[in-house]
C-alpha cells in the first residue's frame, strides 16, 4: 500500500466499505504518512461540511400547490386549444416525429419507385419473354430460375463504361500476320484470328474470339475470377453458316457446376457445335461433317459477370480437310499473355440490371423460338414505349447519318414502320423483311443487304451485348436499364467487299423523360462501295 492507492480508498474507508484487511492496511499507511493523513482530514472535513449543511435548518418552503394548480389549469386549457395535440408537441418532440415522417415518406416513395419504375417493368419484360420462350419451344423448355439484380451505372459511369468498351476495349491479334498456321493448318488459306476483350457489362468482362477459316477449332482457356467466392456466370454466343444465323444461348452456373450446350446448325450440313463449359473452362469444338462447305468466320463470344483474368488461352485449329482434331495441333499463346482484364470500378449490389439464371440446357434451341413471341406478348403500353423509342432513334439516326446513308437507306421508312397502327397485323417478322426486300429491289447489285435494328428493354444480365442480328429477327437484348437500340447496316458485294455502318444508342427512361446516349458510331467502307 502506498500513496498512489490511498486517495481512492479514503472515501470508501469513511463509508465503511473496505474490507477489514484493506482498511487495516490503509490505516497503517495513514499512521506513517502525513500527506495521506492530511488528505483524510480534508475528506472528513468535506463530508462533515456536507452533513452539517444537510442537518442545518432549511429555507422555508413556500406552498407551491396553488401555483401548481394554476399551471395545471393553464396547461389543460392549452391542450384543448391545441385541438387535441399533446402538450408535449413542442419543437423538441416535433423534430423526431418529423424525422420519422420523412423516413416513412422516403420508404414509401422508394417502394413505389421500385414498383412502378422502368426497372421493375424491365423485370416483367424479362419474365414475359422467358415465359413465351418456354411456351413456344417445345423441344427445350426454358425456365427462369432466378433473377438477380445488379447495380446499374449512373450516367457518368455509363458514359465511361461504353466509351471504354467501344473505343478502347478491343485488342486484336491477327494470327496470320504474326505466325504461320500451325502444323496441320491450311497454309493456302490464312487464318485471321482476333481475340477481343472489353467491358461489355458493368462489373463484367467480355471475351470474343473470331477465327477466319478453320472448320475445326477448339478454344480452351481458363478464366480466373478475382473474387474466388463470387460465382461466375457465362453467356455464350457463337455463329455459323456465314454469319447468316446467330445462335445465342445463355448458360449460367456457379463455380463448380458444369453445363454443356449442343446446338445443331440447321442451316448448313456441317454437323454440330459442341460447347463445353465447366468449372471455369470453356471451349468450342466443331467437328463432324464436310468442312469444305464452311468458309465463313466462326466466332465465340463469352461474357463473364465478374472481374478476373484470362490464362492459358489455346486455340486448336485444323484444316478443312477433315483431319481429326489432335492435341498436338494446339496453338498455344504463352508468350503473348493477355493483359489483365479489370472491369470498371463499379460497386456491386446496387440493384437494377437483371441477370437470369437458366438451368442446364442440353437440347437444341432453334433461333426462331428465342425472339419472335416477344412482341406479340407485349402489352399495348409496352409496345407504345418501343415505338416511341424507335421514333427517337430514327430521328437521331436521320440527323447523324442522313448524308452518309442517303444512297443506302430511306431512313424515313424507319419512321414509317414504327407506326403499326397503319399496318394491321404487323408482326416482328414482316417489319424488317419488308425493309429488306424494298432495298434489295433498290440496290440489286448487293448480294446481301441487311438492316438490323436491335432494341432491348432495360434490364438484364451483364452477360449479353449487341449482336448484329439479321433481317427478320428481334433480339431481346438485356444489357442495361433503358432501351438499347442498335442499328446496323451491313451490305456486301459478291467479292467480299462490304460496307458497314452502324450506330448504337442507349435510351434511358427517366421520370422526366427519355435520355439518349450515343456511344457508338462505326463506319467502314471499301473503296468499291458506293
Amino acid at each position, binding site marked *: 500500500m502506498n500513496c498512489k492507492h490511498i486517495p481512492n480508498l479514503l472515501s470508501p474507508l469513511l*463509508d465503511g466499505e473496505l474490507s477489514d484487511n484493506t482498511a487495516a492496511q490503509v490505516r497503517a499507511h495513514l499512521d506513517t504518512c502525513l500527506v495521506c493523513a492530511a488528505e483524510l482530514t480534508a475528506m472528513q472535513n468535506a463530508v462533515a461540511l456536507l452533513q452539517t449543511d444537510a442537518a442545518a435548518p432549511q429555507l422555508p418552503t413556500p406552498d407551491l400547490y396553488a401555483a401548481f394548480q394554476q399551471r395545471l389549469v393553464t396547461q389543460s386549457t392549452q391542450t384543448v386549444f391545441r385541438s387535441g395535440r399533446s402538450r408535449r408537441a413542442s419543437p423538441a418532440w416535433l423534430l423526431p416525429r418529423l424525422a420519422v415522417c420523412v423516413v416513412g415518406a422516403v420508404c414509401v416513395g422508394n417502394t413505389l419507385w421500385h414498383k412502378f419504375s422502368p426497372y421493375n417493368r424491365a423485370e416483367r419484360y424479362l419474365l414475359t419473354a422467358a415465359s413465351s420462350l418456354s411456351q413456344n419451344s417445345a423441344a427445350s423448355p426454358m425456365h427462369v430460375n432466378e433473377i438477380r439484380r445488379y447495380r446499374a451505372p449512373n450516367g457518368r459511369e455509363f458514359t465511361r463504361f461504353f466509351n471504354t468498351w467501344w473505343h478502347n476495349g478491343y485488342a486484336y491479334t491477327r494470327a496470320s500476320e504474326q505466325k504461320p498456321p500451325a502444323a496441320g493448318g491450311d497454309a493456302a488459306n490464312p487464318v485471321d484470328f482476333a481475340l477481343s476483350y472489353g467491358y461489355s457489362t458493368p462489373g463484367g468482362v467480355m471475351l470474343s474470339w473470331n477465327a477466319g477459316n478453320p472448320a475445326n477449332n477448339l478454344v480452351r482457356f481458363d478464366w480466373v475470377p478475382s473474387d474466388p467466392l463470387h460465382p461466375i456466370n457465362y453467356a455464350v454466343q457463337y455463329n455459323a453458316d456465314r454469319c447468316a444465323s446467330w445462335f445465342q444461348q445463355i448458360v449460367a452456373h456457379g463455380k463448380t457446376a458444369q453445363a454443356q450446350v449442343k446446338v445443331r446448325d440447321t442451316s448448313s450440313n456441317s454437323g454440330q457445335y459442341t460447347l463445353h463449359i465447366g468449372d471455369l473452362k470453356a471451349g468450342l469444338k466443331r467437328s463432324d461433317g464436310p468442312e469444305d462447305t464452311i468458309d465463313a468466320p466462326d466466332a465465340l463470344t463469352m461474357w463473364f459477370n465478374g472481374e478476373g483474368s484470362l490464362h492459358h488461352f489455346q486455340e486448336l485449329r485444323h484444316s478443312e480437310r477433315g483431319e481429326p482434331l489432335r492435341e498436338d495441333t494446339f496453338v498455344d499463346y504463352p508468350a503473348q499473355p493477355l493483359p489483365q482484364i479489370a472491369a470498371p470500378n463499379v460497386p456491386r449490389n446496387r440493384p437494377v440490371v437483371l441477370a437470369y439464371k437458366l438451368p442446364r440446357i442440353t437440347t437444341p434451341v432453334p433461333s426462331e423460338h428465342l425472339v419472335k413471341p416477344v412482341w406479340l406478348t407485349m402489352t399495348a403500353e409496352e409496345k407504345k414505349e418501343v415505338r416511341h423509342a424507335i421514333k427517337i432513334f430514327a430521328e437521331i439516326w436521320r440527323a447523324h447519318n442522313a448524308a452518309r446513308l442517303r444512297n443506302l437507306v430511306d431512313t424515313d421508312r424507319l419512321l414509317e414502320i414504327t407506326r403499326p397502327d397503319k399496318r394491321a397485323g404487323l408482326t416482328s417478322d414482316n417489319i424488317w423483311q419488308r425493309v429488306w426486300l424494298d432495298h434489295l429491289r433498290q440496290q440489286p447489285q448487293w448480294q446481301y443487304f441487311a438492316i438490323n435494328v436491335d432494341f432491348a428493354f432495360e434490364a438484364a444480365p451483364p452477360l449479353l451485348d449487341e449482336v448484329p442480328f439479321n433481317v427478320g429477327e428481334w433480339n431481346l437484348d438485356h444489357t442495361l436499364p433503358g432501351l438499347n437500340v442498335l442499328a446496323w447496316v451491313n451490305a456486301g458485294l459478291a467479292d467480299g467487299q462490304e460496307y458497314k455502318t452502324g450506330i448504337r444508342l442507349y435510351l434511358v427512361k427517366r421520370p422526366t423523360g427519355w435520355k439518349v446516349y450515343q456511344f457508338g458510331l462505326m463506319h467502314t467502307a471499301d473503296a468499291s462501295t458506293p
Partner: protein
Amino acid sequence: MTNEAAMPLTISPDSEDQTLIVQFLAGEERAFAALFRKYQGRFLCVARRFLNDEGEAEDVTQETFLDIYYGLRGFRRGSSFHTWAYRILVRKCGERRKRIARRGPVSTSISMENLRDLPAPEDLPIADSLLIQETLQRLPDEARMTLILKYYEQLSSEEIAEVLNCNVGQAKMRAHRAKNALKDLLKPLWENKE
C-alpha cells in the same frame, strides 16, 4: 457501518404513497395534493441545491409535479414512488441546467474570491452553507446530484442507483469520486485560511 445504515430514511413508507396514488387514480384530487405537499419541500431542496436559483428551483419542482400528475396513470403499482419521482426530478433538473447553460453563464452572488474573506468554516454555519453551496456548483452535474441525493436526501446507494439509472457499484463509485472532487475544491480554501 455505512452512513445509510446509520441514518434511517426519512422518506415515508411507500405504502402511504401507494394509498395516496390509489386514491388519486380513483378521482380524489386531494390525495395528489397530499402527495404534493409531502414531497414539495424535498424536491425544492434538491432543485435549489442543484440549480442554485430559487426561481428556477420552484419552476422545476412544479414541472416535476406536472409530469407526476400526468404520469401517475401509467405508474406501475408496487414500484417505489419516491425513486420514480426523484428520477423525474433529476431529469428535469438536468434539462433545466442545460437550458440555463445555453442562456449564458450563471451569475452568482458570491464568488470564490469573496469566500476567502469569509470567516473560517467552523466559526459560522451560514458561511459553511454558502461555502458548500458555492463549491457544489463547481462540481460536475452528476457528482453534484449524487452528493445531494446521498447527503441531503439521505438516499441509500441502491436508491441512488435506481434514481440515476445505474447499478449500485456505479452509484458508490460516483459518490466516492464526487467526495474526492469536493475535497479537492475545498482543501485550497482551507489551506489559504490557515
